[in-house]
């Protein structure tokens, strides 16, 4: 029988949860997907919970997705973004968070530019922490929704081949995806320019390719990442145009492959760079399914972690 509760109190990264946790999140998310397709898309599960969304880094999709998930579970929500806060005045992370917690917040969803910021907080405070991205480290809910979306199309992921294309070096999505897919038994390859592939990535049990055609011929699914210009303090590629001509995916390339593959992208897409517009809008792409599943996955994570909270017993 599968597990009924998560093995951890926080979701700091896919590395720290088990295969059973992932299966439990998926089965719960299936039920939430039914809920968000009802005319009334709301259940009262978390009505006594207050959640703070702390975004120390910009985000549109993830923040809206978390906020919708929280509201559909009837939680109270407070939002915080670093650009308009006392962080600018020099307050430390722990002080900021402790101030928010003293206003009786029960869970924290946080995005932070420093890898490990969540693990640091988890050692100092007592509420559930959900990682919505920490620097170049992990983005666990993205990996969960990616794998959930793949599973919807392909069934069990054991033995399925997934290639992650693009800026692997700076991508938290890539790292979380690798952990998640390996735990689910999939085979993983990364593909991109040598400068954007970490030196010892093979230690994680993944294949490496520098040739996009070869990688696409091999895989069942291609998860295509954005080139993160904001994280490139030095030049890793000569130009976007050159990147696009070597690693960009267009419909002509897809149609020349021997089989149909699924194209995914965590967004935001740079149309014409990593994906051409016609690929993003083609039937190969499940990008909008990923976004829909994101809400269901985040509802599942919030619900399961909230059930790990000990409420005051009268």
């Amino acid at each position: 029988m599968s597990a009924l509760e998560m093995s951890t109190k926080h979701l700091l990264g896919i590395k720290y949860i088990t295969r059973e946790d992932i299966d439990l999140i998926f089965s719960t998310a299936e039920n939430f997907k039914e809920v968000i397709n009802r005319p009334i898309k709301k259940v009262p599960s978390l009505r006594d919970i207050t959640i703070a969304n702390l975004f120390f880094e910009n985000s549109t999709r993830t923040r809206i997705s978390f906020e919708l998930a929280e509201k559909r579970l009837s939680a109270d929500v407070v939002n915080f973004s670093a650009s308009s806060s006392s962080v600018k005045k020099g307050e430390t992370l722990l002080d900021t968070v402790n101030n928010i917690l003293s206003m009786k917040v029960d869970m924290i969803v946080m995005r932070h530019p420093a890898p490990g910021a969540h693990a640091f907080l988890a050692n100092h405070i007592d509420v559930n922490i959900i990682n919505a991205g920490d620097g170049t480290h992990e983005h666990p809910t993205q990996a969960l929704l990616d794998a959930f979306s793949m599973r919807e199309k392909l069934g069990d992921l054991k033995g399925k081949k997934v290639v992650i294309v693009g800026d692997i070096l700076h991508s938290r999505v890539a790292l979380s995806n690798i952990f998640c897919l390996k735990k689910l038994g999939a085979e993983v390859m990364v593909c991109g320019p040598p400068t954007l592939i970490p030196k010892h990535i093979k230690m994680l049990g993944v294949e490496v390719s520098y040739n996009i055609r070869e990688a696409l011929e091999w895989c069942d699914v291609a998860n295509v990442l954005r080139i993160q210009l904001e994280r490139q303090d030095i030049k890793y590629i000569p130009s976007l145009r050159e990147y696009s001509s070597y690693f960009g995916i267009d419909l002509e390339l897809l149609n020349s492959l021997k089989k149909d593959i699924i194209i995914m992208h965590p967004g935001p897409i740079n149309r014409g760079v990593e994906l051409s517009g016609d690929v993003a809008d083609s039937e190969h792409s499940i990008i909008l399914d990923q976004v829909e599943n994101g809400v269901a996955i985040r509802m599942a994570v919030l619900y399961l972690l909230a059930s790990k909270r000990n409420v005051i017993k009268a």
Partner: protein
Amino acid sequence: MASGRVILSPSKFNFVLERLTHQLIENYGDFDNTCIVGIQEKGVRLSQNLIKLLESKSDLKNKIEFGKLDISFYRDDFRLRDQPIKVSPTDLEFSLEGKKVILIDDVLYSGRTIQAALAALQDFGRPLKVELLVMVDRRFNRQLPIHPDYTGIVVDALDEAYVRVVWGDDKNDHRIRIFSAENRKV
């Protein structure tokens, strides 16, 4: 498996199912504008058995609308329980707006499951009327003012006792058992 005491034998169990079926036909006739909603998981099993009987007794074949309702997300004791809740799928493909709903569960105990189910039903429309059918009514253990409209058997037992509807593989193998407090984990 620890035995527990049988309080409703297979032969009597089938009599009770027959009686409930006749009561429903008496009140709902051709089941026009009426649907059956079973509460996951054991209420669904009871519903399916009743529908099979209803269909065999009248010309209702494939005419009864049936949905499965999971109430995990509506429970008021979520996070108070020692055991985590197992979530099951909800499968209710039709609107309940203006419909007569027969809500079905196996054991009515504290009434909290039914309270959660009533809240959940509201999310699928505003029913004209909701009636409650249960196989077992533990009438002295209620914590909320909820009463069934159709009852299989009434069981008066201590709070600590555990009553279980045991569905066999064969229709002549269903029964109801009662377990004492020491055996209830089994």
